[in-house]
């Protein structure tokens, strides 16, 4: 039986970062009602997953670190009432450095939160400002330090690279050094992408900023890769690095075709047969849940969509593509239908083949989408 994950989306932030296209609101007045509704949604959706046993919980957003004690009580009561949380469960909370205090940390411990994902993004105040983050680099060090002092032994930090303030890579190198000094177990490094419905997106449209230089970004990707691998982090997914035993179980579930339930506005769920999308609007979400309606749209998976999902997710990870598994799961002969492309990518050293598994090479990762498209069935 595949163990499941629970994702809780907290759709509030104190300010909007210029690059962010997640669903959130900066007006916090409905937060109490919304948290109540998330609890109610857990009840409405309790039978969604194949089994009530939950192996991972992830509080994401938005900014879950701004939740108060009474919010956390409501959520965790609902979790325990509706699901069976396994003893070794990985429970992650996303936190912004500016929210982290001793009090908050000990509060989180009370709910058995054992993993923090801290949005430090950069160790340069000018970059943080450019991204419209409200914390400083100093707060980055302090918050991670406090979390470690409070006994959190599984800490992840987010970094953003490809920030076009300078043409050289000095700042990124410094940020990486700082990150390594913090000695965290996990680092997620995301390339700055400009999404249409964001401040940056509008600036790009109006010409205030220009499109990213992909050579610059590619160089930074490689720089991060080399630095972290050297320090014995494992790149288990394109944007994710972990010390041994510290890969994110919750996120890995997404890539290993395991079921998950997402609650809260804009959250997504997957139960091996269908994917489900919650409405991305706080008011409508509240209104519907209050009427005991699950505010979601369902999309059935087909054999082809599942095959494509497999290619898409597996190729990005260290688990890679297992041709035999594909045949077993989907009845599709991966090597047969992709013979030419496999040969081509192998000869270009974009993919490798090892113990029956195809994986992206370091170079291949830079063109993961290109390779994914090539193997897709459309």
């Amino acid at each position: 039986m595949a163990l499941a994950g629970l994702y809780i989306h907290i759709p509030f932030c104190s300010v909007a970062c210029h690059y962010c296209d997640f669903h959130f609101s900066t007006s916090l007045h409905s937060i109490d009602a919304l948290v109540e509704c998330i609890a109610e949604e857990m009840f409405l959706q309790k039978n969604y997953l194949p089994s009530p046993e939950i192996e991972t919980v992830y509080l994401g957003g938005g900014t879950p670190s701004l939740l108060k004690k009474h919010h956390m009580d409501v959520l965790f009561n609902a979790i325990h009432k509706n699901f069976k949380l396994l003893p070794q469960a990985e429970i992650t909370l996303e936190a912004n450095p500016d929210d982290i205090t001793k009090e908050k940390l000990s509060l989180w411990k009370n709910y058995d939160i054992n993993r923090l994902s801290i949005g430090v993004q950069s160790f340069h105040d000018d970059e943080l400002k450019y991204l419209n983050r409200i914390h400083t680099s100093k707060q980055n060090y302090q918050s991670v330090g406090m979390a470690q002092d409070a006994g959190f032994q599984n800490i992840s930090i987010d970094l953003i690279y490809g920030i076009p303030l300078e043409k050289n890579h000095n700042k990124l190198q410094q940020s990486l050094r700082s990150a390594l000094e913090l000695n965290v177990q996990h680092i997620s490094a995301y390339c700055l992408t400009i999404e249409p419905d964001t401040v940056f997106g509008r600036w790009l449209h109006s010409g205030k900023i220009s499109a990213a230089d992909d050579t610059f970004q590619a160089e930074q990707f490689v720089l991060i890769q080399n630095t972290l691998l050297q320090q014995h982090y494992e790149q288990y997914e394109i944007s994710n690095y972990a010390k041994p035993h510290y890969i994110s179980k919750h996120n890995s579930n997404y890539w290993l075709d395991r079921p998950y339930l997402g609650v809260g506005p804009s959250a997504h769920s997957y139960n091996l047969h269908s994917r489900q999308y919650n409405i991305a609007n706080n008011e409508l979400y509240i209104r519907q849940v209050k009427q005991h309606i699950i505010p979601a749209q369902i999309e059935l998976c087909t054999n082809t969509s599942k095959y494509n999902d497999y290619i898409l997710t597996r190729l990005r990870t260290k688990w890679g593509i297992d041709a035999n598994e594909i045949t077993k799961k989907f009845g599709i002969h991966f090597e047969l239908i992709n013979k030419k492309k496999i040969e081509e990518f192998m000869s270009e050293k974009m993919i490798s083949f090892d113990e029956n598994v195809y994986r992206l090479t370091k170079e291949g990762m830079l063109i993961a989408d290109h390779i994914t498209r090539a193997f897709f069935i459309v």
Partner: protein
Amino acid sequence: MEHIRNFCIIAHIDHGKSTLADRLLEFTKTINQRQMQDQVLDDMELEKERGITIKSHAIQMDYTYEGKKYVLNLIDTPGHVDFSYEVSRSIAACEGALLLVDASQGIQAQTISNLYLALENNLEIIPVLNKIDLPGAMPEEVKDQMVDLLGCDRNGIIAASGKEGIGIDLILEAIIKRIPPPKGDKNAPLQALIFDSVFNSFRGIEVIFRCYNGVIRKGDKVKFVATGKEYIADEVGILRLNKEPREMVEAGDVGYLISGIKSAKEVKVGDTITHVANPCEKAIKGFAEVKPMVFAGVYPVDTSEFEDLRDAMEKLQLNDAALVWEVETSMALGYGFRCGFLGMLHLEIVQERLEREFNQTVITTVPSVQFWVFDTKGNKHIVNAPSEMPDPSKIDHVEEPFIKAQIITKSEFIGPIMKLCMDKRGILKNQTYLTAERVEMNFEMPLSEMVFDFFDKLKSISRGYASLDYELIGYRESNMVKLDILLNGDRVDALSAIVHRDRAYEWGKKLCEKLKELIPRQQFEIAIQAAIGSKIIARETISALRKDVLAKCYGGDISRKRKLLEKQKKGKKRMRQVGNVEIPQEAFMAVLKIE
């Protein structure tokens, strides 16, 4: 036969032919409420989407008038210039025509050209002033125009609205009273004219015909005169909303025939059907040959699909008699077809129909008109594609097709239209005021300047108040050169164009810029160059794509991302690989988009 009437509805585009047909079908109870929808005869998906008629459509109605039962065969025709060949074939199956004029727009260019087609075939014309319900209708003024054009009796013009169902009874009365019944002899040998055909994958080819003499019965042994092929008439019948089998179809009527014909080549529009045992003496005069205006290469995206595409083209040709083609080869694209079209809309429709009805993904190359190239030895070469252009050193001179364009517009737009035509190397021949506000302008200009985006420009500068008709008037000498495009040093013949020398430099530069926009970045650098002969006149570079990977792929991203990549991959299917560069379809049309 006294009780049969064959008529078509003709007009300028959008003057309401198909909508009026709806009302006639409703009024005669040929279709019921449940089957009714707007422009019900426009049954092709493309017609519905674009709101225009592409194919003529025949349908039979019953109508009782003054106690007598009549059979009325209606043919709805398209209004767009590119489909005038459809109109001309429909006319051959009729004795009369409803000529519609939109009461708010008055007489337009295709009102006149379609009227002439009908008059050449001696059709009885019933003038209908349509859309009288419109607030902007100018009934008296437009009636004046119609009287002037037709020399008809003012009282003979029927005021109608297809939308509101006004005047329908009067129209039906006029059809019965004014249009003569078909002539012909039931007892004479069978003589039926094929004017359309459709491919049906279950039943073979369906032939649509007008029976002039004799009777065709189910089970008859028949012969197609031009091809000499013989068949058994497995099924004959009439065309209602669906096909309705009958024991026979008689002289004067329009019907269909199914006889298990599998090969598209055996059916020629314009051919005559007769009996094997008792053949008619003469074939019916067929149709004038179509004169394609634009030529373009049509290639399968995947070279291995050439035979499938050929099969699809043959089947499509059955239903599109104006489509002509021959096999051609391109260095860049391999085997394909050089096709002749009546205009750019026709080209677009053919491409869409190949995709939707026959599941073909095709690339169309840069369209071109037909040039005549005279070499230094005095030989004439017909050049339908830039690749056929002889070496410049061997060329004495080039001639290009000229047209006479007739534009009807409001007088306030004379200035801008004049400028547009001059920009297009046009010469104003004359200008006639039809009324104080309406003017007819006649230009002579190169077809190549007119055929691509002229119509769109004309419409936009006249805010829609200009209509255009044109005809070929012959070839004239012009200073044309071949402009080549090189990608990473290799000439891509499918991207070449023949352009006027005075503009070649500017075009080369703009074309390179446009291609840079349209060709997606790839894993290596792409150099785009424009050249005349061996001389490079412009260059652009597309830098290599260094990174093609999205940052995040968590729960909700998975299906969003999958759909995005799937869509991109589908888009790629429309791209053609030339050397190692992938070129999207739009790139081949870039030449047309140059300002």
